[in-house]
C-alpha cells in the first residue's frame, strides 16, 4: 500500500508530462485518498471520459489558484483557495492513478483530450494573471465560481451513467464539494476584507 502514492505520481507523469511538474510541488504530500481501494477496474468508457475531463478541468483550477493565491487579499477567500489547492492536487493524483489502472487504451484516449479547452479559457486565465492587486479577489471569484459550478455539473451528470462505484462516489463528493464552494464564494463580498 505504501507504494501506491508513488504509483499515482508516476501515472501523473506518464499521462501528462506537461502537467506533472506544475501540480506536484503544490502538495504538502499527503497520500492521495482512496488509492487503497484500487482493485482492478470496473470502469466503463464514460468513467474514463469523466475522469479525463475532470482531470483537465482540475488542472485549470490549480492554474487559477497558482495565479492568484499570493495576491488574494480577503482572508476567507485565501483560506478557501488554499484548501482547494491541496484537496484538488490529491484528487488529480487519484484520477490519474485510476486512468492508468484502466489500461493503455483508456489512458491513450484520456491523454488525447487532456489539454483541450475544457471549461475556462486562456483569455480568462490571462485576465487573472494581469489583474491589478486590488482586482484579484473580484476576478478570481468571477472565474472560479462558474468553473467549480461546471465541475459540479459534470459530476452530477456522471453519477447516473458511470459504472465503477469508486468513480461514482468520487463524483458525488466532487458535486457536493464544488457546490458548497460556490455557496461559500457567493458569500464573500468581492474585494471585501472579512
Amino acid at each position, binding site marked *: 500500500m505504501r507504494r501506491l502514492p508513488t504509483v499515482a505520481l508516476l501515472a501523473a507523469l506518464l499521462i501528462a508530462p506537461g502537467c506533472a511538474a506544475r501540480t506536484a510541488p503544490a502538495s*504538502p504530500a*499527503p497520500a492521495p485518498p482512496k488509492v487503497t481501494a484500487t482493485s482492478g477496474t470496473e470502469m466503463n468508457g*464514460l468513467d474514463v471520459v469523466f475522469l479525463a475531463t475532470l482531470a483537465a478541468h482540475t488542472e485549470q483550477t490549480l492554474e487559477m489558484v497558482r495565479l492568484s493565491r499570493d495576491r488574494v487579499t480577503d482572508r476567507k477567500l485565501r483560506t478557501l483557495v488554499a484548501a482547494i489547492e491541496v484537496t484538488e492536487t490529491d484528487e488529480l493524483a487519484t484520477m490519474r492513478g485510476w486512468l492508468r489502472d484502466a489500461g493503455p487504451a483508456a489512458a491513450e484516449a484520456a491523454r488525447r483530450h487532456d489539454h*483541450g479547452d475544457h471549461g475556462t479559457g486562456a483569455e480568462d486565465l490571462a485576465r487573472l494573471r494581469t489583474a491589478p492587486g486590488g482586482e484579484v479577489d473580484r476576478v478570481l471569484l468571477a472565474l472560479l465560481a462558474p468553473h467549480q459550478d461546471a465541475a459540479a455539473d*459534470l459530476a452530477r451528470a456522471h453519477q447516473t451513467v458511470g459504472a465503477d462505484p469508486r468513480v461514482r462516489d468520487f463524483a*458525488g*463528493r466532487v458535486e457536493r*464539494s464544488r457546490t458548497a464552494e460556490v455557496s461559500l464564494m457567493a458569500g464573500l463580498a468581492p474585494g471585501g476584507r472579512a
Partner: protein
Amino acid sequence: MRRRVTIPLMATGAVLSTLTVAAPAQAHGYVSGPPSRQALCAQGRVPDCGQIRYEPQSVEGPKGLRSCHAGIAQFAVLNDDSRGWPATSVGSSVTFTWTNTARHATSNWEYFIGGTRVAVFNGGGQQPGATVSHTVNLGGYPGRQKVLAVWNVADTANAFYSCVDLQVGGGGDPSPTPSPTRPAPSPTPTAAPTTPPAPGGSWTAGRAYQAGDEVTYGGRTYRCRQAHTAIPGWEPPHVPALWTQV
C-alpha cells in the same frame, strides 16, 4: 511550462487531424441521456464498438451531415442500424442531456428524425454549460425512432453528432432496456452546504477549523492539517490534505 504543454499535443496531432478539420480547439460533447449510441458503447452495453468506447464525445465532422458517425471511418459502427441498439422507452416529451467535455461557443442544437428537423435550440454564440438539457416533444413520432442530435459549434466549421434510439410513447418495450441509464430530466441538486453527513461525529459542515483542531467522524478521530471551512464532500476520511487520522 508553456513549451512542455505543446509536447503531448504534437505527439497526438496525427490522430487529432483525422477528427478535426479546421478546429483550433477541442470542442467535445455527446448525448449522455437518454444514452446515445456512443454512450451505450462507452458503457459497454453494446459490445465491440472499437475506438469510440473511450471517446464518445469525439463524433465530430463538418456541419450539415446526417449520419450517426460524422463520416469518421473508425466510428462507422455508430451508423450501423443492424447492431441491435437498445431503445430507451420514453414518454412523448423527452429531455436530451448533452455532456460537454469541452464547452465551445454554440450556434445551435438540432434534433432530426429521418430527414425532418423536429427541434432546434439557439445557442446564441455563447459558451454552454458543462451539461445542457433540451426537452423535445416527440408526440408526433410514436414507436421506435432514431433521433439524430447535432451540436453546431459557433466558431468552427464543425458539429458534433449523437444518435439516440428511442421507443416513444411508453407502452411496449420491444428491446428491453436496462434501467440504470433511464434519463434523469432534472437531476436533483443534492446536499445543501450545511447538511451534515450521515456517519456523524463532531465534524460539522460549515464550521471553520484551524490547524490542530480535532474532530471525530465515523468513529475515528482526526486532526486538522490546514485551516479551512468544512463542507460536504470534504469529510475527513476523504481529504487527507486537510485531516490526519489520529
